[in-house]
C-alpha cells in the first residue's frame, strides 16, 4: 500500500496564477479530506468528500478555491489567482469508515 500520494510536492507560482494540487487516496478509503497548514494558522480544515460526493466545504475560501473528486482514485484542489497568503502546505488525507486519517506528504505551495 503506497499510502496517500500528493503531487506536486513543491509548487512555486507567481501572484495571480493558478495552482492545481492532486491527491490519490488509499484504495478503498471512503473519504478524502483537504487541510491547509501554516505556522501562523496551524492545521485548517478546507473540505471533504465521502464516496466522491462533496460533504462539507465550510473551510474553503469561496471565491478562489475549488475542489473536486471526479473518481474514487483522485481529488484535486484548485486555487485561482493565487495570492501570497495562499502560501502553505496543503495536506490531503484519506479515511476509512472509522474516521482515522491517513495523511499524504503534502504539497508545499509558495506564491511569490
Amino acid at each position, binding site marked *: 500500500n503506497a499510502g496517500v500520494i500528493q503531487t506536486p510536492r513543491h509548487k512555486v507560482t507567481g501572484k495571480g496564477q493558478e495552482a492545481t494540487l492532486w491527491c490519490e487516496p488509499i484504495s478503498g478509503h471512503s473519504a478524502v*479530506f483537504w487541510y491547509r497548514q501554516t505556522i501562523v494558522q*496551524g*492545521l485548517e*480544515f478546507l473540505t*471533504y468528500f*465521502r464516496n466522491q460526493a462533496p*460533504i*462539507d466545504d465550510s473551510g474553503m475560501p469561496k471565491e478562489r478555491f475549488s475542489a473536486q473528486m471526479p473518481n474514487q482514485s483522485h481529488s484535486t484542489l484548485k486555487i485561482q489567482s493565487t495570492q501570497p497568503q495562499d502560501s502553505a502546505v496543503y*495536506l490531503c488525507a484519506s*479515511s476509512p*469508515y*472509522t*474516521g*482515522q*486519517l*491517513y*495523511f*499524504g*506528504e*503534502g504539497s508545499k505551495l509558495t506564491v511569490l
Partner: protein
Amino acid sequence: GDSVTQTEGLVTLTEGLPVMLNCTYQTIYSNPFLFWYVQHLNESPRLLLKSFTDNKRTEHQGFHATLHKSSSSFHLQKSSAQLSDSALYYCALSEGNNRIFFGDGTQLVVKP
C-alpha cells in the same frame, strides 16, 4: 458545534520527565472517536493513539491515553520523555462517519 481544546500551545520539559498533554472536547454525539496525531518536523501528521471506549487505557509507542466521557477528556501521557518525542501533537475528535475536528496542537520540546 463540536470542538477540541488543547490548553497548552507549547510544553517544554527535560528528558526523562513525565509528559502530559491536555485534551478536552465538546460534542453532542454519544460515541465519539478520539485521536492523538503526532507531527515531527518536515513530516505529515500520523496517528499515535485512538479510542472510542470509555475509561479504557490505550497505549502505543510508550504513550497512553484514556477516554473519559464523564469529563470529556483524552489527555496524552508518557512516563519518561525522550528527545525524539519533540514534535507537534494534535488531539482530534470524530463522530465516526463525519468531519474530523482538530485542536490547535501542542508543541512538545524535550531538552537534554
